[in-house]
């Protein structure tokens, strides 16, 4: 069997994996990043909406190759459609949204990793961990159909929602039924809509989740929705929800699909630990998706950067023990943990509210002047108007 040796093997070439690979390689680590699919970034499993503000902080430059559209604002629409909260450019500043093209975005991040010195292998799937005397020393893989052993000081699980590397290692990343949102999305063209606003629609159009419109161009958008697994009664029902919404909304009267996307997101509280001796998890694999927005690109990039920097240090002392990787654990928690807890609690509350309450809530929030539209400012507005809804996690707002 062929064997390769490196300092760090990254499993999965999504945003979190590429970021980890880049920052570790920049710090001098010998990195191999493996991806089981034949093309990085494709097929897409994403709505492709992000805010602009964090890109610079993780060292990613905006590139017209992956920027599909820069929107002017966001609109949150109540279940009845009668009330909405809008936020436009004048107030939103850096929080204004970008809609990206993940096929190019993911490749751009992988290219950065390659430029930093990381090696990339496609059609290479990790199939298990290599264990010696109870110690993790790499991954077994299948590369273009051939078995391959990749030995490394540290294994990075960046394998996305599937999150198998962590479970192979004994990190419990399993999800409760209430913490899974199942999604379906079309890229719809020939639609008649406002291409300058992202739209989020609440209530029974997508029980326990929300429906979205993320503009790609003047008459094309990612139109999708996510439903809580607890609300699904039969196989394939989430697609029926989406088809029903599209049929009922006149903006989509002449719409035609260019792409269909299935997937799931985790909406769980932060995990207790994502590091152990010789292994760490980043991004969706570490269940770092925001439980309110369902967005995971930014959090995955932050985690990847923190992990990569710590790995670069670990390489110097050739010590990948949990104690050394704890610095990564501290960094990501410092940045993300409170928000993940807050948004998980807010999600638990929101999921229980009937359409009428969501309508009243949206109406009340629409009357509050918001400086910026973020989950934080929205929850603060809810606290002003419906304090009882957020009293259990007031201190996190």
């Amino acid at each position, binding site marked *: 069997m062929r064997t390769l040796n490196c300092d760090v093997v990254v499993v999965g070439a999504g945003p979190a994996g590429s970021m980890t690979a880049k920052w570790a390689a920049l710090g001098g680590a010998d990195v191999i990043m493996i991806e089981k699919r034949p093309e990085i970034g494709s097929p897409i499993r994403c709505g492709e909406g992000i805010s602009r503000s964090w890109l610079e902080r993780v060292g990613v430059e905006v590139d017209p190759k992956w920027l599909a559209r820069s929107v002017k604002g966001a609109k949150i629409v109540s279940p009845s459609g009668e009330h909405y909260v809008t936020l436009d450019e004048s107030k939103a500043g850096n929080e204004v949204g970008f809609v990206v093209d993940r096929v190019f975005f993911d490749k751009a991040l992988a290219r950065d990793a390659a430029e930093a010195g990381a090696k990339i292998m496609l059609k290479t*799937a990790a199939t*298990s961990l290599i264990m010696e005397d109870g110690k993790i020393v790499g991954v077994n893989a299948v590369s273009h159909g051939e078995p391959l052993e990749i030995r490394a000081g540290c294994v990075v699980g960046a394998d996305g929602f599937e*999150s198998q590397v962590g479970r*192979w290692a004994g990190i419990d990343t399993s999800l409760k039924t209430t913490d899974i949102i199942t999604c*379906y999305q079309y890229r719809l063209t020939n639609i008649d809509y406002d291409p300058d606003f992202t739209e989020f629609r609440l209530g029974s159009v997508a029980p326990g989740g929300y429906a979205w419109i993320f503009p790609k161009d003047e008459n094309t958008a990612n139109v999708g929705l996510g439903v809580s*697994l607890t609300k699904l009664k039969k*196989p*394939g029902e989430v697609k029926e929800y989406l088809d029903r919404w599209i049929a009922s909304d006149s903006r989509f009267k002449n719409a035609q699909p260019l792409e269909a996307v*299935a997937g*799931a997101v985790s909406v769980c509280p932060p995990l207790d630990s994502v590091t152990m001796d010789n292994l760490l998890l980043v991004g969706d694999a570490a269940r770092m998706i925001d439980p309110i927005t369902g967005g995971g690109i930014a959090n995955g990039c932050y985690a990847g950067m923190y992990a990569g920097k710590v790995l670069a240090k670990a390489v110097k002392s050739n010590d990948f023990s949990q104690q050394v990787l704890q610095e990564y654990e501290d960094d990501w928690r410092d940045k993300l943990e409170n928000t993940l807890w807050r948004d998980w609690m807010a999600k638990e509350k929101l999921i229980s509210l009937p359409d009428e309450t969501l309508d009243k809530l949206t109406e009340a929030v629409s009357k509050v002047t918001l400086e910026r539209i973020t989950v934080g400012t929205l929850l603060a507005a809810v606290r002003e108007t419906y304090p009882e809804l957020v009293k259990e996690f007031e201190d996190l707002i």
Partner: protein
Amino acid sequence: MNGGRPKETNILKVIDMKVSAERCHHCGACVGSCPQNAIFMNDFVLEFGDACNRCKRCIRLCPAGAISEEG
């Protein structure tokens, strides 16, 4: 720690659970949601391992309605 994917790696051999290749989008939603970690997806092939306890979560969850019970 179970260390790796289902040991039973007979490609396309499906134990109890059946995937419709015509419906499946290879999105991995079932893989990440299986409480037993019994599913492995290599690119476009889904394998169900012995750990499956037939809880049927994946059947209800699959956005494409691609999973059903054999027989």
